[in-house]
């Protein structure tokens, strides 16, 4: 009798284990089908609890994406949202999206988290990659951005030059690898038109 009971209990345990492994295998197969060919994108936001959107759809901070081009946007009430266009190729990717505080509450939060924030806040200046290349000066023209306006969009570039050479700074921006169409300009020479 005892033997029979023990056998039944053992049989039930084996049955449950089989069921458990079937579910586990199904979960694994499902996951591998879903994530086949995809790579993980880790979005680090500041503040950490900012929400993340991928191509306009809310998502988590760790996202599995198929290779392709995506627009990642981070936003939080009181902060200016920040977005970045990324390309997922053949490996996982980490990106950082930092939000500039705008409202009173957000500014006081930034003040309280100064150590963490001020360190990373400087990275905001990296939003526009042309900034490290400015100011620029040579014999015929100079280009600069007014201090304190580095994080403003659009970025306004001030140009001082001579008549006949006004296109040179624009060509220089193009030679630096940027499309000059994307910036605003203030020339020291009035347009005749």
């Amino acid at each position: 009798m005892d033997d029979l009971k023990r056998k039944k209990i053992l049989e039930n345990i084996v049955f449950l284990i089989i069921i458990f492994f079937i579910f586990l295998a199904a979960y694994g197969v499902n996951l591998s089908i879903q994530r086949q060919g995809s790579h993980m994108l880790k979005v680090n936001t500041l503040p950490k609890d900012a929400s993340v959107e991928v191509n306009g759809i809310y998502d988590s901070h760790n996202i599995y994406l198929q290779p392709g081009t995506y627009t990642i946007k981070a936003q939080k009430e009181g902060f200016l949202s920040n977005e970045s266009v990324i390309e997922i190729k053949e490996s996982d990717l980490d990106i950082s999206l930092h939000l500039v505080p705008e409202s009173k509450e957000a500014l006081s939060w930034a003040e309280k988290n100064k150590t963490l924030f001020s360190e990373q806040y400087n990275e905001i200046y990296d939003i526009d990659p042309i900034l490290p290349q400015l100011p620029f000066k040579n014999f015929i023209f100079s280009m600069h951005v007014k201090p304190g306006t580095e994080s403003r969009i659009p970025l306004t570039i001030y140009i001082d030059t001579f008549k006949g050479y006004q296109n040179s700074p624009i060509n220089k921006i193009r030679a630096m690898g940027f499309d000059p169409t994307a910036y605003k300009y203030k020339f020291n020479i009035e347009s005749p038109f």
Partner: protein
Amino acid sequence: MRKIKIIFIIVIVVILAVFIVFNYINSLRNVKIVVSDIKSVILISKNDSKELKQFSSTKNFSLKDGSYCLKAVDNRFKDTPVCFTVYKEDKDVVASFNYSKSYLNDLLKKERSSIDALIKSTYPNITDNYKVCPGSLIKDESWYGGVFVQKNNNPSDNSDYYHFIFNKKDGIWKMVAKPSIILSSYNFKDIPFEVLSEANKMTLCI
């Protein structure tokens, strides 16, 4: 009892298999590719550069998340593919390609007289101080970019050049961007960025 357990396991396996298949089908998005006035279009998977389908009219596809490109098979259009990303939802994609340089030049021949007339009427004395470069159509038959190059008394002096853009609406050409050293996208929000960018690339008269 043992038989019931085996049947139970089989039922679970079948249910899970159906669930996996259903999940896979559910992960495919319905993508409608709208095609008009073009000989044919090739759909390419950007991931592995594989040609998926060539078609000549609007079609629906079941596509996995990822990036895809469309390539025009028509001499009137540029070779540059138009790419789009499918992510978590169905979408409609309009296969819209830019005209090729040679086709735009053909179209410009028909428009040249009205464009020249507009330049003359807007700036009657322009040729006193500027050389008017033969510009070109940009993107399609509705955008024209041109350049005025400042004349100098001394030919060895450097010249400033000013870019401008005309737009054709309801058959009438109109100046939409006044001549400027650089046409910034922030000053001309109604003009497509690529049109501004192309116009800004125009330099001295060739």
